């Protein structure tokens, strides 16, 4: 009997029956090949090219290029910018997501649209707006030159300090904050909306105040989404070119971030230097990707 059954199943097994949920083999392999081929061509190949170009004159030339003081300063400025812009957007993003997801108020849809604005506007335009507002010919410049300004003490202090926004570090940070604003908020809003308010209400009926509710209930619930948003925000903050390019002034060793430094070196035909700096950026991006995967993995393990 058993042998009869097995021979039966064997004979029917020779004709492969397609499952309803599965496409034909050739379809699957073709689609996979197309996807992988596309990724290799447009993502992997450029990455390899960056390192190949950087190492073209050998490891020694690469290390010398990395030690270039202007390059090191650019790296430092990039890290400082990210270190200022990311925490700022962490706070803004959480605050914006909190009030959008948990409360109803007039103007809520306007706020949601405003959060998306940096995604919709070209970075160059946003940089230009900052130049218009904070540049020497802009409102800020007019304030510094005003004969009877508001808060004269502030004007005096700003002039004394020679405090510049455009073509200086504050402008770079401002432009970066603007461009990277949506990342944290966008990540959190759907998450918080989906979680609803019941846990917060429960905490409140149990006697927790607003602050305790936020720290003990809301924040732990959005923790993973927040990590994810911060990582994406950080990646963009370090890589931002357009807006920063407009407001920075490209002063070597002063207001050059790594992406700007790469462009300058490339335009000066210093290919090894340009690609060496680019490889540093690529490495930072890879670190970000690894962190992101780690966060996803840890989150999946926690919720499993």
């Amino acid at each position, binding site marked *: 009997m058993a042998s009869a059954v097995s021979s039966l199943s064997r004979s029917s097994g020779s004709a492969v029956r397609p499952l309803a949920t599965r496409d034909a083999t050739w379809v699957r392999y073709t689609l996979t090949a197309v996807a992988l081929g596309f990724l290799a061509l447009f993502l992997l190949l450029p990455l390899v090219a960056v390192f190949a170009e950087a190492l073209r004159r050998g490891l020694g030339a690469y290390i010398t290029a990395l030690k270039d003081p202007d390059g090191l300063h650019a790296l430092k400025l990039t890290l400082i910018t990210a270190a200022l812009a990311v925490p700022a957007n962490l706070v803004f993003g959480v605050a914006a997501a909190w009030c959008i997801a948990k409360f109803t108020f007039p103007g809520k849809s306007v706020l949601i649209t405003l959060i998306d604005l940096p995604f919709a506007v070209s970075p160059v335009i946003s940089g230009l707006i900052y130049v218009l507002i904070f540049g020497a010919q802009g409102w800020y410049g007019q304030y510094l030159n005003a004969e009877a300004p508001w808060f004269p003490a502030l004007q005096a202090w700003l002039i004394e300090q020679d405090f510049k926004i455009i073509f200086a570090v504050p402008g770079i940070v401002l432009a970066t904050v603007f461009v990277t604003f949506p990342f944290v908020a966008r990540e959190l809003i759907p998450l918080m909306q989906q979680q609803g308010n*019941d*846990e917060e*209400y*429960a*905490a*409140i*009926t*149990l*006697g*927790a*105040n607003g602050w*305790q509710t936020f720290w*003990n*209930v809301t924040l*732990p*619930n959005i*923790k993973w989404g927040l990590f994810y948003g911060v990582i994406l925000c950080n990646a963009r903050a370090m890589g931002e070119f357009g807006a920063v390019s407009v407001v920075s002034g490209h002063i070597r060793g002063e207001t050059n971030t790594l992406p700007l430094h790469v462009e300058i070196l490339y335009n000066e035909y210093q290919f090894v230097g340009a690609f060496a700096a680019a490889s540093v950026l690529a490495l930072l991006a890879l670190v970000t990707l690894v962190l992101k995967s780690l966060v996803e993995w840890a989150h999946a393990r926690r*919720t499993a």
Partner: protein
Amino acid sequence: MSIIARNITKTFGAYTALNDVSLDVPEGKLVALLGPSGSGKTTLLRIIAGLEFSDPGSGRIDFHGTDVTDIPAGKRGVGFVFQHYALFRHMTVAQNIAFGLTVQPRRERQSAEQIQARVKELLKLIQLDDLGARYPTQLSGGQRQRVALARALAVQPKVLLLDEPFGALDARVRKDLRRWLRQFQREIGITTVFVTHDQEEALELADQVVVMNNAKIEQVGTPQEVYDQPASPFVIEFLGNVNRFAALGHPLPGAGPDVIYVRPHDVDIQRHYEGEHGVRVRVQHVFSAGNYGRVALVRLDNGDTIDAELSRVRLKELGLAAGDEAHVVFRHIRLFPAGAFVERDVAADDATPAVVDAGRDI
């Protein structure tokens, strides 16, 4: 702790959730707010809890004679249990239960040992002694609901409020938990209000049922009162199955024809009937599976359908089959003047067979 709500009105934009509602909950009672969705029952519960506030200038909530209208939820001393539990998902069961105690101001807070002892006591009370270290996702629905209850009770509330506490549970667990809750409530004697749309649940569990519809309270009474003496057509239709007929003739002045209600279990079927109150019917279908027998009948005189419920023994005795003709006699009826929702009990004495007929006032 008694609860008194006076003249509560709540609107959300153009939508009125509660329209001048007043409610008394006596101390130590288990009260059900029963109604279809959109009747305002959950809004009323949330206003009692302090999670929502009645429209400015309207209404007042008293807890045991003290006005709490403007006191925030956290200071009212209410335990609130949410339909979907709202357990803190990143905390263990023990941490969830301890939450209300750990967030108290330092001066009033109990020591860590005291809190731990209290958590242990509550875990025992909800019969989950060994599950303190689990996370909510590792519990079944019924267990989660009990944890939510323990968490609410940890701060020793004076009032317990439950929003559809069994709504998300499957039928079997619901029944067990219902029985458990009733016994538990009797034991600790805490004033409890729960919201439900399930009439069976309200009738089985509550000392007092508050039937709500369209932002208003239709009737307040013991389960027996609201079932046997429904104050309005809505109440009789919402609480269990009922046959509805237009009375023949006899319209009140200025109203349409009266509406007559007969519960299926008040419909008596007889093969041969000699009296004067019988209605001739034809059997349409016999449902013989279940706790009792059900028979679908059609009146021969006007084609109205009648549902009857009778014991399976009686059903067997009658030996009815589809197509048979028989007589029915109504043991107990209620009549409401249609359109005018005026309470008017016209039911005959339960023991006397009665029939509704043209022009008869019974």
